[in-house]
């Protein structure tokens, strides 16, 4: 079936931007409505993808190809599979909801929503492009709107946060560019990711650069690029700052989607093109995951700023994902062909990617709600809010429980899958990282106690309850979290074929893994 739906999904926001350009600056309402329509249509289109998606195949669907720069073999290739589809839907959903989260923006509205839509284009493009050059262009296109959105509409330290974010991620991207070019010249001069997935494992096999295996060199270059985005310890220092300074809607996008781009890049590129190095790096990945879990949780525990606490909880959750990802080597012959463990680990990692997207989005929106009313986020500065804002407190309780991984919420299932998968191969690390769950519960519950329980702080006896617009942005996310927590099968079915393809790629390469 010939269709351009993926191109439409990417470029619909561009139409929105064009429309906004013609609206006079004063008509802020019109600008917001245009953005809502553009992101809404985009979200519906992603749901359309879901309805047409063939679950039985792990390959790419809805492929589009067009020539772009023939002399350098650069093509415009789009496609979606079980790994990218959940992310595409999540992107569609969060951008749509974030439009309403940004409804109160009143400073340079035209610029804000234009940049917001540009960010949307960049993120969708990364998830859907299958040409490495195109991937890189979209990857970089995200940086500029993010810089401005943090830097112009952010908190007091916004300028520093914005430039730090930009510098960190740019270091990662330029290293990635070098890796892309090295792959290009060693693997048959193509940027076509599908071709590279076929040729790279054999073309690079046994190639040595300065006494190191070429596969490892390229892996490390790419890994640093993606790890900065995730962020993996010790590259995480930009994240809390950017989160705290960013406006609420941008924090939602940042935690909900941007962090996942790093994981997505690792699975799409490192795992699929350099499967041999997965064997070499899985142990390190698990250890880094453990550090993220413990470090993130400890830092969260120490925070006085609620938003910073949520930001560090992201660092903590990314750790679980890394541990789940490392489980993929269980499927290899050396580990007794334990395909079930690999499926659980990798599936759990991707499931958690999605779940963290909904849960952290919810958390950031809720933090935004209280900030809007009290104009501060100091955990110690509240107290007893539950009596004043019962609905809000209830929803926060729900989000906190989802965040700490209580059974019945989707976060629990995915975290459990990550641990179950990794246990056969990395027993010690999994056992150690369960401390993280404990800490996880501690910081969320402790924060809840300090803010909502006890006697009501007199300063806040007139605080208004959460309003309808805010409820509208949170409830869909809460419903998804609960639904997938009770009945995760639809999601796991969606991704399983693609996960099996990735697991096979990694498992098969172990037959000639002797080169390492």
């Amino acid at each position: 079936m010939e269709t351009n739906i993926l191109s439409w999904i990417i470029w619909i926001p561009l139409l929105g931007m064009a429309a906004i350009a013609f609206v006079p600056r004063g008509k802020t309402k019109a600008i917001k409505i245009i953005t809502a329509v553009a992101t809404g249509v985009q979200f519906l289109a992603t749901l359309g993808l879901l309805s047409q998606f063939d679950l039985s195949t792990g390959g790419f669907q809805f492929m589009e190809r067009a020539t772009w720069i023939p002399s350098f073999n650069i093509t415009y290739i789009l496609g979606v599979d079980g790994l990218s589809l959940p992310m595409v839907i999540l992107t569609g959903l969060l951008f749509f909801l974030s439009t309403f989260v940004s409804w109160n923006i009143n400073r340079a509205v035209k610029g804000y929503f234009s940049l917001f839509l540009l960010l949307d284009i960049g993120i969708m493009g990364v998830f859907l492009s299958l040409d490495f050059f195109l991937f890189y262009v979209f990857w970089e296109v995200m940086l500029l709107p993010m810089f401005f959105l943090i830097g112009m509409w952010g908190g007091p330290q916004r300028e520093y946060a914005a430039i730090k974010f930009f510098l960190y991620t740019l270091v990662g991207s330029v290293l990635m560019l070098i890796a892309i070019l090295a792959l290009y010249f060693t693997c048959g001069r193509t940027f076509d990711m599908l071709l590279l997935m076929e040729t790279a494992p054999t073309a690079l096999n046994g190639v040595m650069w300065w006494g190191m295996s070429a596969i490892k060199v390229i892996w490390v270059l790419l890994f640093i690029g993606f790890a900065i985005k995730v962020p993996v310890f010790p590259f995480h220092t930009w994240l809390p700052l950017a989160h705290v300074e960013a406006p609420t809607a941008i924090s939602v996008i940042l935690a909900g989607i941007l962090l996942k781009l790093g994981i997505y890049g690792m699975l799409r590129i490192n795992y699929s093109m350099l499967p041999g190095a997965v064997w070499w790096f899985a142990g390190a990945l698990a250890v880094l995951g453990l550090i993220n879990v413990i470090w993130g949780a400890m830092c969260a525990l120490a925070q006085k700023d609620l938003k910073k606490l949520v930001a560090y909880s992201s660092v903590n959750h990314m750790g679980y994902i890394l541990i789940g990802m490392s489980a993929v080597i269980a499927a290899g012959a050396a580990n007794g062909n334990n395909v079930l463990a690999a499926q659980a680990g990798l599936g759990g990692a991707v499931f958690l990617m999605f779940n963290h997207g909904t849960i952290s989005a919810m958390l950031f929106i809720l933090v935004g709600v209280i900030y809007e009313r009290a104009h501060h986020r100091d955990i110690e500065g509240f107290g007893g809010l539950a009596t004043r804002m019962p609905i809000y407190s209830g929803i926060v309780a729900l989000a906190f429980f989802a965040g700490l991984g209580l059974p019945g919420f989707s976060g629990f299932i995915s975290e459990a899958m990550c641990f179950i998968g990794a246990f056969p191969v990395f027993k010690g690390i999994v056992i150690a990282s369960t401390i993280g769950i404990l800490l996880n519960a501690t910081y969320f519950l402790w924060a809840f106690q300090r803010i909502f329980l006890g006697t009501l702080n007199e300063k806040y006896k007139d605080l208004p309850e959460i309003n309808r617009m805010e409820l509208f942005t949170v409830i869909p996310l809460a419903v998804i979290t609960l639904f997938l927590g009770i009945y995760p099968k639809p999601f796991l079915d969606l991704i399983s074929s693609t996960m099996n393809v990735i697991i096979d790629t990694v498992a098969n390469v172990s037959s000639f893994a002797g080169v390492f």
Partner: protein
Amino acid sequence: MNNLQSLSYYWPEIILTVTVLVAILVDLFYSDKNSGKTALWVLGGLILTQIAIYVQDSEMTRTLFMGNLAFDPFASFFKTLTILSTVLVIIISQKTNELDGHRTGEYYSLMAIMVFGMFLMASAIDLIMIYLAIEIVSIVSFILAGYLKGDLRSNEAALKYVIYGAFSSGIMLFGMSIVFGLAGSTKYFVIQEAMWNLQGSAHFAFTLASIFILAGFGYKISAVPFHFWTPDVYEGAPTPITAYLSVAPKAVGFAVIIRFFNTVFGDGGAFIDPSISTFTNIPWPQILAVLSVITMTLGNLVALQQNSIKRMLAYSSIAHAGYMLMALPTLSSQGAYAIMLYLFMYIFMNLGAFFVVIYVKSQGGGESFDDFRGLGWKMPIVGIVMTVFMLSLTGIPPTAGFIGKFYIFASVIKVGPQLYWLAIVGAINSVISLYYYFRVVKVMFLEGEPSETIVVPSASVLAILFTFAIPTILFGIYWVPIANWVSQSLKLFIKVM
């Protein structure tokens, strides 16, 4: 080909010479010496020259004037770049207020003379010719840099420029005389043949002489350590001239270097054998790689500390020379290709950035970062366009600057793992450059508050802004025509052995 026959291939230069003479003559008859009407005559002459280049352009290559000049697509490419940047600079010169009260007639005719010198640089294949060409360009640049006679900084710029210029061309001439002593000729092709027969100890003399010659070339492209003139000259000269110096002479400087290295040290410019150092024992790739690393790193690190945007752009232009030099150690057609593409892209983004500086100054602002504070709120269009140029200079897609850098990195990585370190150093340098380019963006947008009154530039200013901004974005998205043009132009005159 003898001198008389050569003239029929020399129409562009002849038209250019006539243009210079006409411009000087008509200027005498204008009563208002500031009117800038001479500019129209020069523009007309340049366009005619370009037409002549276009008509003549062919796949055929030959030498002119008894083997002094080459006539090939490579030279035509750089002549076109020269004309393009000169035309753009003449246009932006109309919008500056720095030249008020100075006679502008000579200003434009001097520019045309400089174009002539740059034409010679692009096509010379003889050491004496190269020397003369570089001197023509330099002497005119000295005058233009010091054009603001009453301004102390402009005077200082001219004087510094003269001293450094004289010094480096002296060194270059010394190197040339050694080469002449070793090879018995000043012609590139004779020198190249002589290289094959050099005896052991002569290699050292040859290396030394080449480094001396490189000093002269490095001075033109402001490569470290021959860059000391750059910041002061760029700061003191009238801004349009600064913009001009950062683009046109630099481009032909690279033309000279590419031609010299690929002809004399290479296989005569045929780009068949990239491993030139094999028969000369001179570690050229290493020397050039180190030069490139030093140039870009120093340019970037010093640019970080500037408070004047004009001076920051001066150091950034040193860094850009460093990026382009990265492709030189590859000594491949890919490397030359990347440099040529980069130079083309560089014209738009760099002249554009300078034009914004000129415009802001003419609106009563200044050149320092403080003068740009809140500019994005007061003049959103100017701010957005400047952001595009800064993005492009940093090398972030989808802009022309990224494509230029992409080809440079590609040519380096293509050589193989032994040059990966160079690519990584270059990449880290682009990250450093982000900091100072985005400092401009930061002061324009992140600082300052929304203002009530929004200044929209006049239609002519908008037209000029978009002349620079649209290609900067467009060639970042679709650059096939440029890529094709460059690859067709990558054809040097080759001596039939």
